């Protein structure tokens, strides 16, 4: 899947799950940049992303991502 499209769709998921229309993800975005991105909403985000892109990740993969860019690259590589 094309990377920029992944970023756009991930951004939409963040806006919906975190209920914050102002979110504008960049490759370097991390949880510290978004107030609503806490440990519980993180779970909601991951579940929503796995459902939306029809992909499955494991715990180690998720923990290896340092920022949104790494997450989106993983999704782009995995999603059809």
């Amino acid at each position: 899947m094309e990377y920029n499209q992944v970023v756009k769709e991930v951004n939409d998921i963040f806006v919906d799950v975190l209920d914050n229309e102002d979110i504008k993800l960049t490759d370097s975005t991390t949880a510290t940049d978004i107030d609503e991105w806490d440990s519980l909403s993180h779970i909601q985000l991951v579940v929503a992303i796995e459902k939306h892109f029809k992909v499955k990740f494991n715990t180690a993969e998720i923990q290896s991502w340092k920022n949104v860019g790494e997450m989106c690259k993983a999704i782009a590589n995995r999603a059809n």
Partner: protein
Amino acid sequence: MQQGDKFTHRFVVDDRVYNGFIEIFNDRNPLHTDAGWAQSKGFKGMVMHGNILNGFVSYFVGELLPMKNVIIHAQTINFSLPVYMGDEVEFNAEVAGYYESVNTYEFKFTFRNGEGKRVAKGTVQIGLLA
């Protein structure tokens, strides 16, 4: 527990449940407490509080699953038909998905009345505590 696993249980909305709910949450809206008023709105009688069913979902998660290290992350419910005093409702839940990455299960569930008609459906997402 894996995708497709099913759970079923029967609950009765009796005096104890109804009065306990009102005692705790103090929702005395006439739809729930005045049979004449409820009938004037087209119902057979007092409509039981929809959120009693959410209490049954809580019981399912806390007591019927094969593990105790559970916590509810999210829950949805849509009501389609009223439940009346004394109704027995059949609860059916199915594992709709497991998200290993965040150790989270999602269930779809329905409640059906004695006539087999669906009175509510929803989803509940639970995490497993480490």
